[in-house]
Structures are given as C-alpha cells and as structure tokens.
C-alpha cells in the first residue's frame, strides 16, 4: 500500500491537527504548512483537536478525505498510543510537532518522528534570560522575588515554569522567594487576577521576576506589578512564543517590565514538520526521530530583527 501511495505523489494530502486552533502559534504553524503545500504541490487539511475525542474525529475525517498522513500537536501527549492505533488502522503516517507522544511506559514514543522544542528547555531559556538580565541590572538575587504564574492543569505550562525555576534557583535565587500564582486561563486577564494577591502579599520585595507559560500570562503579571507601583526597572518579565502580544508590548513608547520573550519560530515548526511528512509519504524516507529546535531571546532592542529571522 505504501508503494502505491508513494507513487501517487501529485495527490498527496496531509492533515495538520493542532490542540488550540485559535492561538496565534498554531495558526502560524498551520498557515506555514499550507504555504509549503502550495509551493510543493500537496494539500494541507487544517483541523482542530482540542481533546482526545476531537482528535479521533479529525483523524476519521482525514481518512474520509483520503489523506495519507498528518502532523499533529496532540492535546495530551499521553494520547499517543490511541492516536497511533487509529492511524495504523487507516494506514496513515504520523509526525508530531511541539509536543511528543508518550507511551504507556511513560517514555516518548520513539518511532513517531517528532519536531519541537522541549518545554522544559524553553523554560530553562526563560530562566537564563531572566538571570542574565538580573545580573546586568546588578540585582542581588537573594532579595529578588519570582512570580511564577502557573497552570498545573497544562503539562506544557508546568514543564516551562519548572524549567525556568530550576535555572533561577541555580543562579542563586532562594527557593523561599518563588511564589506561585495559579491562573485559571492562559490569557492576560487571568494572569493579572492570579498575580494581584501574590504581589500584595509580598510587598517587601523591591525586585520581581515574572514568568509563565506564555507572553499573555506574563503580561498580565506585568500589568499587575504596574498596578502595585512597581517601575519597569524593578521587574523582569520574560515570556515564551513571539506573538502579537509581545510585539504589541515592544512597540510601546516606554519600556515596561516585560523585558523579553523566548521566541520560537512557529513558522519553521509548521513548515519543517509538514516537509518531513511530505518527504516520508512521497519518497518513503522516514524523518529523524527527534528534531529539537530552540528559541531565541527577543527583547525590546532586537525584536523586529528576530521576528524577521524567524519569519513570524
């Protein structure tokens, strides 16, 4: 069957399933893949899979359309076995992007090609950026408080904040100075609401660092810090992604507590993962098991340049 499909190269159709179809990140990925498809002559079906049920429906749907494979960012990494099960049933090829499948033994499913950045490592990059900036500003980390806007329902969020926390602790931030503020959502509003009580509780600290799952949440924290009369030079907020929220912040007249963000090229992710799958279908060359990408720190000074570099 594979050979037949491979021969039929001009009718290649692949799916691109993402867990949060409304988010800029995934929109970028999907449109980059679509663009590539237009260049290379294959069709990309964009689908949403917000939970397991919807992912399976999306796969059924792809099967009905006669797609040969799909790229997926799963809503839960542990869905791997169920998704692979369904894909095998339909004889579809699968590559994952952003989040890698985990098998029932708790280890990554090695035979599914993956392209992405490790959430934990991204988190470490965030921590690194914060630590360096704090050092540059000459802060004594012993007296710095960390506002960790957490969202433990989301494994990605947890991995990112854990990564950042680890680096900061190594850099000399006392563990007692790390304050959790659980948010209900991942938007600015909930970041703000979560940060408010923590800031008011710990009024003794002069310097704050803020990190979270994404830029929006960090921005919420920064807004809360402004509300408490903390100045831009008293706060270092570093986000993740490189989306409109960050650009909006950087293009303000005056610098704010939002120091920077670890930008990852969603465009590259979308493009490369689609490319990999296309190659696999047409030439039968299986992509590398795990391609790790990394982020690039984007600050007020270099954001436009980085943005261009990453094609955002």
């Amino acid at each position, binding site marked *: 069957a594979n050979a037949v499909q491979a021969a039929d190269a001009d009718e290649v159709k692949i799916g691109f399933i993402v867990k949060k*179809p*409304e988010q800029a990140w995934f929109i970028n990925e999907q449109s980059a893949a679509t663009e590539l498809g237009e260049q290379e002559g294959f069709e990309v*079906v*964009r*689908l*949403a899979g*917000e*939970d*397991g*049920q919807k992912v*399976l*429906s*999306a796969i*059924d*749907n792809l*099967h*009905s*359309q*006669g797609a040969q494979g799909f790229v997926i960012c799963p*809503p*839960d990494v*542990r*869905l791997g*076995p*169920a998704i692979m*099960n369904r894909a095998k049933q339909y004889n579809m090829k699968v590559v994952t992007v952003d989040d890698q499948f985990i098998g*029932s033994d*708790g280890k990554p499913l090695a035979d599914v090609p993956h392209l992405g950045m490790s959430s934990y490592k991204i988190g470490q990059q965030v921590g690194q950026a914060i630590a360096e900036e704090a050092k540059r500003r000459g802060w004594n980390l012993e007296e710095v408080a960390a506002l960790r806007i957490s969202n*433990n*329902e*989301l*494994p990605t969020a*947890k991995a990112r904040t854990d990564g950042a926390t680890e680096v900061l602790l190594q850099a000399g931030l006392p563990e007692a100075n790390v304050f959790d503020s659980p948010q209900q959502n991942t938007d600015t509003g909930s970041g703000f609401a979560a940060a408010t009580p923590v800031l008011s509780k710990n009024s003794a600290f002069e310097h704050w660092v803020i990190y979270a799952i994404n830029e929006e949440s960090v921005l919420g924290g920064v807004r809360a810090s402004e509300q408490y009369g903390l100045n831009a030079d008293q706060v270092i907020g570093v986000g993740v992604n490189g989306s409109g929220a960050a650009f909006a912040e950087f293009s303000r007249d005056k610098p704010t507590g939002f120091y920077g963000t670890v930008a990852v090229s969603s465009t590259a992710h979308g493009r490369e993962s689609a490319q990999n799958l296309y190659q696999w279908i047409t030439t039968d060359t299986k992509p590398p098991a795990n391609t790790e990408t990394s982020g690039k720190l984007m600050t007020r000074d270099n954001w436009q340049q980085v943005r261009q570099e990453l094609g955002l």
Partner: protein
Amino acid sequence: MSAQKSTDSALLTDTSCGSTSNDGEASTSERRRGLPKALRTLLDTSGLIAVFVLLFAALSLFVPDFLTGRNIVGLLLSVTLIGTIATTMMMVLALGEVDLSVASIVAFAGVVAAMVTSSTGSVAIGVLVGVVAAGAVGAFNGLVVARFGVNSLIATLAAMEFIRGLAYITSGGDAVMITEPGFFDLGSASFLGLTLPVWVMLASFVIFGVLLNQTAFGRNVLATGGNAEASRLAGVNVRRLKIIVFTLQGVVAGIAGILLTSRMGLGDPNTSMGLELAVISACVLGGVSLSGGVASITGVVIGVLIMGCVQNAMGLLNVPTFYQYLVRGGILLLAVLFDRWKQSRR
C-alpha cells in the same frame, strides 16, 4: 345540543376559526387526525426532519467524501459522546431543569475508572467504580435540586467546578495511563461494523425514548416539567423523580466518559470542556423546551445528527477554525428561528 357545541369548538380550534386565511392548513391537519399516532408525531416534528433531510442531501451532493461508508461511520463515532449524554439531558430538560456538570462527570468518571482499573487490575471493578462515582455525583445534584430547591443551573454550575476539581485532584492533574489492555476493548469492541460506543448511543436513544414515551415514569417527568405543582398534587413523588433523573444523567455521563477514556487510552481530567453546552444545544435544536414539559427523542436524535453532520462537513471542506465558529453559531440560530417560525405559522 351539548354535543353540537363541542364539535363546533373542536372545529374552531383546528381551523383557527373564521377568516379565509388558511383553510388548506386546516384540512391537512384534519386529515392528520386519521393517521396513526406515530406518523402524526413525525409530521409534527417534520419541520426539523425536513431540515435535516435537506441538509443531509445537500452535504452528500456538494461535499466530496461526505457520503462514503467510512465517513458516515466516523461521523457516528464522533457524535457518540454528545448523542449518548443528550438522551438523559433530554430527560433533565423535560423536567424543567438543566445540568451543566456533565462534562466534568465525563472527565471524573474516566479518571476514576482508569485509576481503579490500573490499581486493581480488573476492568469490571474499574468500570463499576467509575459508573458508581458518576451516579453518585448525579444523585448529589438531584438531591441538592430536589431536596433543597436550589436552581439547577446554579447547583450544577457549582458541581461542574467541584467535580472538575476532583478529577484534577484524583489524577494529580495529569492524564492517567491505563495499563490494563482489556480496558481498551470497551471502546473498540465492534459488532456489525459499529463499535461499542456507537451501540451504547443507539441503545440510549431506544431506552430513553421508550422511557420518555412508554412509561409512567417518563410521562411523570414531562408532567413535572410542565407544572411541578400539578404533579406533586396529583401524588407524583416529584422529589424522588428529580433525584432519579439526575442520577441517570450522572450514570449515563459516566458510561460515556468511561467509553471515551477507553477509546483514548487514558483518563484525561481536562477532557470535554464545553461539552455541556454542545449537548444542550443538540437537545434544543431537537425541539426540547428549556422551560420543561416538552421533549421528543426523535428531535434529539435529529439535533445530534445535524450538529454532527455540520461539524463533519466543515472538517471535510477544510473550513478555517474561525469560520467554524460563525457556522456553528449561525446554524444554531437559524435552527431555532426556523422552529419559531414553524410554530407561529401553525
């Protein structure tokens, strides 16, 4: 003489008396009198059925790959969760209540079943505990609503938060992996080309259809939804009725949740957010009144299918996500507008 009077008034009722407007109408509805009950009900709900048939025909015609065996099977599978739960939601709505906690129950039951199965090694025990837990949540909802007279929207909104929290706490926030291979069979066991979840959905359609129409219980539910005071005075145990219906809702949501978990291979505490609104939409699309007392299983089946078909077709047509919002909102609005129009024309 008295006989004369009543026939007259019966005529009046039918022909919406007088003026020349709609004599054709009247005679149609009179002709309907002669038809067997089932067919008459069909004609009454026929507006909706017509919409569905038209929609289905249009989709089959214009959407490539829509009318293929594998797509229809996939479509059926994709509506199992909504479809199964819609049957008991219909009962709850018929009672004049509403249940927002179903999505949380789905998640909770799934997590509990997955954990218990993994720890005891027995699928049966796992499923049983999951269903019982879900039923207990439903019974609790029923108790709060029936015993303390709390508005069900609020009671189940509270339960929605609470049970979701319990699901997170039980699972530690992470999806629970299932180690027992037997558990997967639940979701994939197949018979006549359809898998267990589809059969369960079809069974619920039949069971709750019969329950609603053919049993005293179902009629009491409708009576209570139409006028709770009336059924209480007529000796219906309204309190028990409500508790039973909410418990059934819990049990069915639990079963649906466990089947989902089995299909997914993991108990995910984050699953099915927003499901309650989709289920209620499907019921209302199917002509179930939110103020209670009016419900039909045919309507609910059609409502579920309409929603499923539209969603499926949008996937096939590659409609961008954002426009899917517009389409979903638009369809819902058009369907209820159509329903209103149909009723006002009568």
